[in-house]
Structures are given as structure tokens and as C-alpha cells.
């Protein structure tokens, strides 16, 4: 049975009609055209599908869309403001923290969520927080550096 589901998506009020058990991942990708959020495993193990739900990094591939009713969802497309990259995005560019780029949106959303909660993350905390996001190209060392830089930037440091 289809239902109307309302939530805030990248700052905009959004209403969709869908069966409530459809996953947020495919609703975003297929129904709402936001394809920056990636499918990597569909079973919660890779993190490519990570979005922020009420500021919390969440895996959209296992999440029924009805769960986000009334909540605030941010995807990779909603992270930059008026063409200005979010500090984490900018740091990924500056550190060249990507190769094929497929894991990148999930990495950035996870890191951005972590920094929302605690902008003064240590390197160890960054590693721990990203541990369950997988990257096969091996961009890890630069991703850690990038998130460290973004953390400094967000604390207003240099």
C-alpha cells in the first residue's frame, strides 16, 4: 500500500508517495534522482550509502523510507552551500583523498556527521569512526588526512 511520506531533504520539505517499506537508498536514487548516494552492498557493510538523518550518519540501504518521516535527511548533494564546498568536501579535493570516487560520498557523509557531533576529533577517533566504511582503491591514508584537515578548519583553526 502506497503512503505519503513527508520529510526534509537537503533543507527542503519533501513529500513522496511510495510503499513505506522501500529503502531510503533506492527512493533517493530512483524516485528523487539523488544518485550521489551509492549502492555498494545493500547489507550495511560498506557505507557507500551513508546519509545524515537528524545529523546522524546512517546507512540508507537497509532503512525503510517510512523511518525518515518527519526527519531531516541530508545527502551528499545537500552538503555544499551555494556552490561552496563543505569543509570535508574541500579537504577531500585538497588531499586528493579519492581514486575511483565511488566510496567518496559515503566517506564524506560519515565524516561530516562525525564532525557535527564532535568538531575536535583526534586522528584515532577519525580512524575509529570511519572503520566500517570500505574503500577498495586504498585511499585511506589521504582520507584520514583530509578529515583531520577538515576538523581543524571547522574549529576555525588553520
Amino acid at each position, binding site marked *: 500500500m502506497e503512503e505519503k511520506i513527508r520529510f526534509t531533504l537537503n533543507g527542503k520539505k519533501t513529500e513522496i508517495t511510495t510503499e513505506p517499506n522501500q529503502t531510503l537508498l533506492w527512493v533517493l536514487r*530512483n524516485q528523487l534522482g539523488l544518485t550521489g548516494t551509492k549502492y*555498494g*552492498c545493500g547489507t550495511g557493510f560498506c557505507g557507500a550509502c551513508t546519509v545524515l538523518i537528524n545529523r546522524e550518519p546512517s546507512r540508507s540501504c537497509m532503512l525503510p523510507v517510512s523511518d525518515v518521516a518527519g526527519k531531516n535527511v541530508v545527502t551528499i548533494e545537500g552538503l555544499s552551500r551555494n556552490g561552496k564546498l563543505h569543509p570535508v568536501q574541500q579537504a577531500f579535493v585538497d588531499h586528493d583523498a579519492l581514486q575511483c570516487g565511488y566510496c567518496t560520498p559515503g566517506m564524506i557523509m560519515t565524516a561530516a556527521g562525525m564532525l557535527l557531533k564532535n568538531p575536535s576529533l583526534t586522528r584515532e577517533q577519525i580512524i575509529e569512526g570511519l572503520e566500517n566504511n570500505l574503500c577498495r582503491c*586504498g585511499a585511506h591514508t589521504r582520507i584520514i588526512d583530509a578529515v583531520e584537515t577538515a576538523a581543524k578548519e571547522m574549529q576555525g583553526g588553520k
Partner: protein
Amino acid sequence: MKKTDIKTQESSGEEIRNGMKRRNFVKLLGGGIFIFFQPLDIFDLKDSVLPQGRSLTKDYNAFLQIAGDGTVSCFTGKIEMGQGVITSLAQMMADELNVPLEKVKMVMGDTDLCPYDAGTWGSQTTQTFGPAMRAAAAEARSILIDLAASKLGVPASQLEVKDGFVVDTKNPGKSLSYGSLANGKKLERYLDVKPAVEDYSKFTYVGKSYKHSDARLKVTGQAKYTGDLKIPGMVFARILRPPSHGAKLSTVDVSGAEAIKGTQVVRDGDFIAVLHENRDKADEAIVKIKAEFTFNELKVNDKNMYDRMVGADSRVNVLRTTGDMAAGSEQSDKIFESEFLDPYLAHTSIETHTALAKLEGDKMTVWAATQSPFGLQDNISREMGFPLEKVRIITPFVGGGFGGKAPAQQGVEAARLAKMSGKPVMVVWTRDEEFFYDTFHPAGVVRIKSGIDKSGLIKLWDYSLYYGGSRGSDTIYDVPNARTTAYSQNMNATAIHPFGTGAWRAPNNNANTFARESQIDIMAAAAGMDPLEFRLKNLKDQKMIACWKAVADKFGYVPAKAPGGRGIGMACGTDAGTWVAMIAEIKVDKSTGKVKVVRVACAQDMGLCVNPQGALIQMEGCIQMALGYTLTEEVMFEGGNIKDRGFDTYEIPRFSWTPKMDCVILDRKDQPPKGGGEPALITVGAAVGNAIFDATGARVYRMPMTPARILEAMKKA
């Protein structure tokens, strides 16, 4: 002017077809100056297997266009999958033509727009493509100068190129832009000259670091991978899969799937799929199909496979031999015999195999995540009976390949389904399908019998490899009596590999390097020598020696005999024309057997390094990825049933594994560029294995070196 031929196209059917195709490019792209060239040396290709009906050697596999708006484009069937060629090739072109980097465009992996190319693998892109492309760019430059000379009425010698203009050196106010020179022209040239060795010191862009030119698109989620495309009427497919390789469908009932609203079930023999406009619905429908299979399993699994390999009736092929094995034994004071085991490995790109197919009239267009767009075009044409020119493959961004996307079965599946259903069909393999249909890195066994004399010189090296592939099996060390023998599939015997295998990153070089460099360490320890001193004593290869010096320096290596409890190990090797030496430092938890790689130093001689930043990133990526085959990765199977179907059991490297990395690229501007996407991967297993020995005195002969295997080896030590 340099020698270039304006070719006529009547010599063969192949040439006529390609000749027509060349004119199509010119028409399609609206004119300009075109330089067709051959990025691949014919003679380098004699060993590679070409698909039927294709000729690589007769024609031009790439071209360069200068368009009326001054844009310089290179069209090639190669693809970008994270290795950064889209940036390094553009740099080379910008340099040769002296145009701003932003004016340069790479058009890759579109079978309608790009000439034939066998595929992107083996670190060949920069190595073979780069110099040829630059020669083509040089040709374009001389054409531009000639055109400008006649327009301006001055001798060509008085003109030079600068920032996209041809400038009169005597009269700097007088200049013509490339765009204005190319505008309205339909000029085709075919480059038959061998690229000359060039003066690398003159380059502006080459040799400097450039970041990924596509980074901004990728960090904002704008970069389009195949799965991100959507066209009107598109449906998602899920295909009924057998539970194991070799299983045959016996009965099937699809009514459960059909009961789901909006689902279409299509069938052609055993090929059965559900289609739905929503992916989740297709997922729901596919599990409603009731199917039964019959099995005829091979009695092979991840435990007994090695015995099966060495016991098999194999084809025996001596790859290299120098001196005499009996003499080698005689000259040796100590003889060592070891056996090394290497398992099947999965590719596990984070993007699974994905394809979107659309049939319009009699033309099939397929967007696919593939390392071989033309290979896929061939397969669709052959399997579905489409003429080649009626199949177009377009390659959007590819989310990692590592050899796993050389086969593109999903593209054929999407094309078949598009034809069967009359709708555009998107196939996105699940992670389970990705594991099941992966063409794994083949497992193998290496046996080595070697010997040293009293002074620590290697006198005997008898190397046998079973079923693993010979890349990287070179002796490297200076040994008077050496032989390499390969045992491989005998055509009349039962298949050794129970499922598909194929290229991985640096195919099998990791296994050969693991075996060789472990054996070297075993001998160094027996000789009572520091492992680096032992290596240098037995090496004559100057490039390798230079790499060792550089890496020892970078690491701050202090000589000591192993096992010394420090947890330091080393290894060297060559891959894709590149030399690499590595020193690793690890910690072993002696109660659990768990290894943490703390630090890796790596030195690489890759000839001229076109984009040092890009090359460093590739080295880091190799080291990180290699930790997987070294410590955890191994495909478990029983007959044709792949037991690892996800990241829950098949563990790939994570953030907490990342060691401190110190990478150096030797300065070799005088040498042609070589491949850099794979070499640093090959030495990690051996360096870590040798470090485990240094830390614990225990030798592990089998990869991955899991905690259980390390504990077991420690018991024996």
C-alpha cells in the same frame, strides 16, 4: 614536414571498415584537425589474445582532434577507473601542444566515438599510450604551424606555439589561435612514425603533480557512474542465479514473482529475470521465484585445492633456464626446499558490475562499468547477433576495476533483457552476485629449491609454479643456475579452477614475489647475514640496487640478522616495467597471532614519472589494498559454491590497518614512463611475511597470513 602518410583504405576488409569508421568520426565530430595514431606497439602485442574478428595491429586505436573552438581532445577506448589516466594523459597532451590544461579533453571508452582498444589493464596506459599520444600531438603542432605559415605568409621556422596560439617570433603581435586554424577544416593525418625520445626537461605539465581533475565532481556526488543513469521507461532487473557454478536449473515456478504488482518476468531458457521500475520491488520479486537445481560438484574446496594442483596432470613449460641444475646443487653448500601457497582472491570493487541497455530500432546502446568497452561490444555482437556497428558501449565513470571489470557479463545480460522486454534495462549486481561471478585471482602453488655456497652466494634457483600465472616469476637475483617451470592446465584434463579466474591488480605477481622473497629471506637467515646485505650481495640489477638504497635510506634501516625481534621485513620485485623495493615494520601480538603493519617504506623506479602526485596515490593505494591479500583475503568455496558472498566474511583492508607510508619515486627523467598502478602491491605480502619471521622466528608459507596460521607457525618454530 615529418613523414606522415595519407593512407588509402583499400588494402583489406578490416581497413575498409575502420577507414569508414574514421570518416564517421570526422563527420560525427564536426571537423577540425584529426591525427590518428597507434598507441600500442604491434610487437608488444604478439602475446596478447585478440578477440575474433578484431585486428589491433592494422589500424589506429586513438586519435586527437583540434576542434574549431580550440579544444584539443584525445579519443581513446581506454577508461578511467580511479587510476588517474584521465589526468596524466591530458597533462601530456597539454604539454606537447602548449595549451592550457583546461582546453584539453579526454574522451574515453565510447565505442562509437573512440577507435578500438583492447582494454584498460596491466598498467599499460601511461606506458604505451603516453609516448604515442605525444607523437600525435607533435604532429598536430607541426600541422598548425604549417597552416599558420601559409596564412601569415611567413616561413614555418619563424613560428612557435604558445598557450594555444601560433605566434610569429619576429612579430609577436601576429598570432593565430588553434581554433581559428582548425575551424572549417577536415584534415586527417595518420601517424606512422615511432615516437622519438623527447627532452622531458622542456615540459610544463609533465613531471608536475596534478590532483585528480574529476575530484570536484566526485566529492559533490555529481559524477555519473553507470548506475546513476536513468532513462524514460527504464526498469531494474534481477536475474535468477544458480546456487553454485555448474548447477543446472531443473524446475522453476515464477508465479510468486508475477503476483507482485508491476513485475514482468522474462525468460529465455535458463535465463530468467524479473523486471520492475523499482529496484526494491525487483529484489522482492526475485526471491519469490521457486527454483530447483541439480548439482554435479567437483570434489574440490579451499582446503584440498593445493594438493590437487601439484598432483594434476599438467602442461609443463620451462619458461627460463640458465646454467645447469645439477651443477647448481653441487656448487651449493646448503639447499633449501619450500612450498608457498596462494589462494583465490576477489576483486570487490565497491561499485558492483552495472549496466544499462537500451534498444532503439536495430541499435543497442549499453552504458557499462567495464574495463573493456570494445570487449563488451564484441560479446554482445557475438552472443546476440548484432553487427558491431549496431552496438554502442559508453563507459561512464567506473567505480574501481582491478581487473575484475575486464569481463562485463552484466552488459550482455542487460542487452539481452532490453531486447527481450523492449524496455531500457538496468542491471546492478548485488554484492552476492559480484562475489559469485567474480573472475578470481587464480590460486596457485610455488615450489622453490635453491642453494647457497659458503660465502652466501646463490648458486641454485629451481622455481616451479603451479596454476598461478607467471607474472613476476623472474629470478631477479644473479644466479648462475636458474630455471623457472610453469605447470598449467592441460587441455584434456579436468579443469583445475572450478570457476572463472582472471586478472587481479598485478596478476599473480604478489604470489611469485611472496615466494621468491620469502625464500631469499630463508637463505639470508641460514647464511647468518642481514637480509638486505644478502640481497645486495646477490643482485647485479642496478635499478634494483638503486631502489634498495633509496628505500633503506627512507626507512632509516639499521642492518641486523633476522630473527631479531624487531618485526622488520623486506622484499623487492618488478612489475609492468617498474622496479620496487619495500621495507615494512610490523607488530605481532604473540598471544593472538594478530599482525599490525606499523610502517611501510617503498621506493619505485618507474621511469619518467608523469604525475608524481598521482603516482604516489597509486603506490599508497597498492600498499593499502595489498594488506588484504597479505592478512585476510581468501575466497572460501566448496565445489562450485562460493562461500564468501559479502564483506561480512571476506575482509578487505580498513582504516585501522593503514600503516604509516613513506613512498619515494626515483628521479628517472631520462627513461620512458612505466606503469605505476600496480607494482607496490606485489612486495607487501613478502615484506610482511619476512617481518613476521623477524618478530617471532616463525615462517608462514601460506597467504593470507591469518592469526591462526601465524600461531601455528609459531608453535613449529
